């Protein structure tokens, strides 16, 4: 497990380190592990859905546990920690400081993650990642549900601590010569999500406690039998988790700003536009939470307000897309693996954005809500955009972290398989939703026209995507140990400076 060729070190030194690159590395390794485990659950789910009836996962409750833990793992143990890992690795370099502002706090924030992960995985709850009451308080079996609640509690605290650290590092420890309007757009993305985390997450943290006391029966916040209201939970939940959707997304946006200009061999189209879009999204992201709740019986006025709030966030996202396309326009693009994943991610971002507008249009939401359309839609962004871009960035950082080069051919095969797989699974699921298939069902009626064949296409796509990530894992492990030594000044042969430790100022 010694990764830096130039400076081999024993594993324990990395484990007990508080240095930002070591913590960053730990974050990345543990989140990639989570991606593999969560992916394994996804493949099992898709295997079960290949045929109607129950074959692989015999009991619907186990199926429910599988998708709950899959969703929780992917969101809180892959997407969030991976972004935090890259942030840890790069932010101090980008703002030219020796480390994060509080290195020990940083280590504490990281080491809370395995604890939270253990609670989630050992409990294996069946509430769905949304844990809507009253199901989660009166019917979900314990102690799994309690363990899920405490697991999420710990993960939430971890990400708040991490965010505080990022904000202070970026705002207070930035080199005096580096003005905030000169710092990299990746730093802007981390700054935005850190502020959003601090504003958004406490609401959910509070509702977790309320869920727990409701489960104990000593309160009835969300329990109608005790005068509570389950819809109140949904408001609290989505007040945290709609902004959180942007928290998953923005680091990927920041990474794209790192990669796109570099591999296009062109300066960025507009830095100001990028900053403006980050700030706008961070603010407007808070005005749309109840668009997840159109079918709960909201009044017409409420629905209108949240439709407008949701649509208002779209221009900011589309400014990013414009910026990337304008940057690539006329560039001499080098399609190495990181760029392939980046461009693939942008294409799917556009597709999922268009689908999102459909969900927002009130009458249409009543067709798509809680159907497989929604599963297809959020996976297009989470798998298609966020995870593919993160994957591209793994390849991009690989020489910086290990001093070695990964196998480019294998990485390109990985991209093609992953991209094709994602389209097979998630585009098909959009159609499946339009044919009326509800999400979160272990079994379905194969005689309904279209359901059987579309589920089978989706399962095959999932296995293709799963296979592609096995290729990545082998590539990374082999190359970290015995890959070609990277030419550190310009490992991708772009003709431009790669990260430079001595100058300590990444550049586009």
């Amino acid at each position, binding site marked *: 497990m010694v990764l830096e060729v130039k400076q081999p070190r024993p594993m324990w030194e990395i484990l007990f380190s508080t240095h930002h690159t070591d913590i960053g590395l730990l974050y990345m390794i543990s989140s990639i592990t989570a991606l593999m485990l969560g992916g394994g659950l996804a493949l099992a789910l898709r295997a079960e859905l290949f045929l109607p*009836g129950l074959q692989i996962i015999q009991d619907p409750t186990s199926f429910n546990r599988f998708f709950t833990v899959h969703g929780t793992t992917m969101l809180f143990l892959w997407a969030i920690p991976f972004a935090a890992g890259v942030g840890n690795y790069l932010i101090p370099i980008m703002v030219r400081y020796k480390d994060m502002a509080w290195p020990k706090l940083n280590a504490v924030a990281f080491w809370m993650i395995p604890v939270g992960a253990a609670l989630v995985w050992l409990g294996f709850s069946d509430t769905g990642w949304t844990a809507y009451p009253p199901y989660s308080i009166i019917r979900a079996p314990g102690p799994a549900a309690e363990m899920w609640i405490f697991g999420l509690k710990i993960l939430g605290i971890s990400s708040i601590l991490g965010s505080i650290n990022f904000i202070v590092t970026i705002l207070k420890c930035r080199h005096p010569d580096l003005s905030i309007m000169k710092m990299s757009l990746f730093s802007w993305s981390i700054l935005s999500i850190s502020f959003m985390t601090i504003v958004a997450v406490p609401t959910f943290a509070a509702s977790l406690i309320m869920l727990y006391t409701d489960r104990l029966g000593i309160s009835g916040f969300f329990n109608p039998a005790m005068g509570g209201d*389950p819809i109140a939970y949904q408001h609290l939940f989505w007040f945290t988790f709609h902004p959180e959707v942007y928290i998953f997304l923005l680091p990927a946006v920041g990474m794209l700003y790192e990669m796109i200009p570099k591999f296009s061999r062109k300066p960025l189209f507009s830095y100001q536009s990028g900053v403006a879009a980050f700030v706008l999204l961070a603010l407007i992201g808070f005005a749309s939470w109840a668009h997840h709740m159109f079918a709960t019986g909201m009044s017409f006025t409420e629905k209108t307000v949240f439709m*407008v709030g949701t649509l208002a966030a779209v*221009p900011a996202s589309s400014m990013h897309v414009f910026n990337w396309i304008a940057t690539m326009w006329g560039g001499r693009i080098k399609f190495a693996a990181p760029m392939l994943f980046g461009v693939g991610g942008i294409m799917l971002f556009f597709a999922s954005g268009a689908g999102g507008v459909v969900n927002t249009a009130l009458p249409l939401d009543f067709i798509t809500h809680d159907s497989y359309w929604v599963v297809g839609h959020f996976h297009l962004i989470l798998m298609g955009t966020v995870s593919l871009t993160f994957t591209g960035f793994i390849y991009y950082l690989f020489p910086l972290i290990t001093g070695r080069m990964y196998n480019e051919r294998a990485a390109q095969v990985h991209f093609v398989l992953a991209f094709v797989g994602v389209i097979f699974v998630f585009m098909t699921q959009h159609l499946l939703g339009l044919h*009326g298939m509800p999400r*979160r069902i272990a079994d379905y009626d194969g005689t309904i026209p279209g359901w059987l064949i579309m589920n089978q296409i989706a399962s095959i796509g999932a296995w293709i995507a799963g296979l592609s990530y096995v290729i990545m894992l082998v590539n990374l492990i082999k190359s970290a140990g015995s890959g070609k030594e990277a030419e550190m000044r310009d490992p991708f042969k772009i003709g431009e400076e790669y990260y430079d430790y001595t100058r300590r100022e990444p550049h586009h």
Partner: protein
Amino acid sequence: MGHATIEWVYVGVVIALLTWVGAESWNVERIVEHVPAEAETIKVIGQQWFWTFEHQDGKKETGELHLKQGVPYKFELVSKDVIHNFNVPDYTILMDAVPGRVNVVWNLFDQPGEYHIQCREYCGFGHPTMKAKLFVEPQTAEAAGNATAAPAQAPAQGENATSTATAAPAGPPGTPLTILEGSSVQGSPDFDPDTLTVKKGDKITVTNKDTLPHTVTSGASPSDPNSAKQFDTSIIEGGATADIETTNIAAGEYPFHCTVHPYMMGKLVVQ
């Protein structure tokens, strides 16, 4: 610089498009949501894991809903336990049934036929099987004539032979099979006896001592392709009884289950 101009134009176009989408949606939703004053009310009750319907005239149905073509219906949705979602995909009816609240959704059915009702909000173990059937009956005698020609109208499709189970059984009671109180809770004792042995030709009388509806249906689970092929009592309301005739069942062992609570399982041995 020309840079910024292009971007402003682009953002302007995006905003114009979104404004159009928003305005159009607002307008359509406003019209769609307006419940006509003459609509007939149907009370829809969701509970783990079946649907009950109460018509305006007091008639109750479980697992099936019979409505008339061309009449506007207003559905009042309630739930007895967790959140469910009343969904008829063919007519884009979709609304949560939330405990402690009454949600309203309305529709007018313009095509007679048989449609799926399903639950579209995760509600636990039986969520995938929380379904019901919607029968839209032709409005007029003339329409009825037209509709019998339509294939979707066939009233008893396939295996569903014994559907009058809730009616009081005729004649002396047969071999008893009891559905115990509290059966609906997963893990509790359900059928008594768990394995029932009878001679071919014997009558079985099922007594539901629970407060919730249950069924005794052949097959290991609702997804078993042979489900309900040998016998099926359909819904037995709490406190009611139903008979199973074994004259047409070949000797052998048959697993059975409750379609409402698929973890309730037992076995019938016919000698």
